[in-house]
């Protein structure tokens, strides 16, 4: 039995992130009270426990912190793309994100190289923030 690629799990917290991504904006959750920024979203601010938080746009700039290449398909939906890369990005604003590198192979980059977000539509409902060399 074939399974499609997994979709984002969208709930009341993450909804804002995926809405912004569909509009081509990368956001992280920012605390309205202490300005702490983090990703993924949390029900309260990990720094001050405030429950007033918003999805705030970030620069989309980051650096390559690490990367791997999957040779095994844990979902059938990824089988055709093997071996595919996953990168760890350190956003300029602090939070870490996992994503995929597009427009280059990670072997050609060094850890610490600059990256820029680049949005890729999965379908009409979902757009994924990916990264390319800056």
């Amino acid at each position: 039995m074939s399974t499609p690629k997994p979709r984002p799990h969208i709930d009341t917290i993450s909804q804002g992130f995926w809405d912004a991504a569909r509009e081509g904006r990368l956001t992280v959750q920012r605390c309205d009270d202490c300005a702490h920024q983090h990703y993924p979203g949390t029900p309260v601010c990990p720094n001050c426990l405030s429950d007033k938080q918003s999805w705030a746009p970030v620069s989309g700039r980051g650096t390559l912190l690490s990367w791997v290449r999957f040779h095994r398909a844990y979902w059938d939906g990824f089988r055709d793309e093997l071996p595919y890369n996953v990168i760890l990005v350190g956003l300029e604003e602090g939070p870490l994100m996992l994503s995929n590198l597009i427009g280059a192979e990670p072997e050609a980059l060094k850890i610490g190289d600059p990256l820029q977000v680049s949005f890729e539509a999965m379908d009409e409902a979902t757009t994924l923030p990916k990264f390319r060399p800056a």
Partner: protein
Amino acid sequence: MSDFRKLKDRIAVVGVGNTSYGNFPHTDDYGLGAEAFRRAIADCGLDKNKVDGLGVCRLPYYARMGEILGLAPRWTVQFPPHGRMSAMAIIEAAAALEAGLCDYAALIYANIGRSRRVNYGGEESPGVWDPFGFTSPGAAHALMFQRHRALYGTTTRQLAEVSVAFRHHAGLNPDAVMKQPITIDDHEAARPITEPLRLLDYCLINDGAVCLILTTKERARDLKQQPVLISGFGAREAYRQSSIANFDLNFWYDEVRDVAAQTYGMAGVGPQDVDALMCYDNFSPTVLFSLEGLGFCGQGESGSFVEGGTLRLGGKLPTNTDGGHLSCSYMQGWALNVEAVRQIRGQCGERQVKDAEVVQFVAATPCSRSIIYTPG
């Protein structure tokens, strides 16, 4: 005012037992757990009805396990089925025994992942990074090792030293699942799973169960075996990056340093006194991270530290003398604690470390733990 260090040399492991390891579709978690308990009881010679503390891990239901074993404890804890729980459970049991919450604690771990075809990734464990194809604890270790390579120049041939040493030990252990010797070149040629890690960097998935029985030092004197004392332990969590499970950007270095300071401080020994190390090894890179955090070498120096057979029997720091998760059995730290006890008792046959008097367990994970065992 209490201090955990008062527990030094207060609690003893008095009985250990394990099933054979492999693929056992004819039984279940409880059947395996019961067999390990039966063997641990036989090992220490305790009347099983005196067991009044029960900790279970990766077993579905503590009460069913208690029913099967005919126990009526006054202390019960169920630990979640995560690899990092073994030393956490042993420390909890030690504190419960010291506080008098129970007199004899049995800790039982059973894993039937092989027969259940557990994958440890994909749909079994949904996560926030799934849309990018990222899943599985092995991939988190691959991310960390890739970064370690870039920062410190660690090589995959150095990483191979870990798998090669543990496989050598497995060849000396009748219980081990994988005994065929391997070389560094075999490691380099193995099938990539999540690059830069290959098949031989991944732990086994097999069925089996382990049981440890603990009591106070005083009660331990009346039992069959030489008591093995818990002389030191330490603990520190790293929850800040838990949305990337099993991952830390700095290899849990600060946390394991803290754990080391607590553990060595309590036991009154240092890394130079450790006769054998039992190192949680779900994936080979975590062994390198553990060695650095414990101070066997500086941060970034573990690659050269392990070169030339350092971790092998007869080497500077015999590590995972039973073969570890990589080659003996995926008993998630539990079997390594049993191996530590058997090394202190001198029951390890061909793989015995001569005069082993200080044996250390360590797990570098989001809940890092270490325990030092010494003869009672």
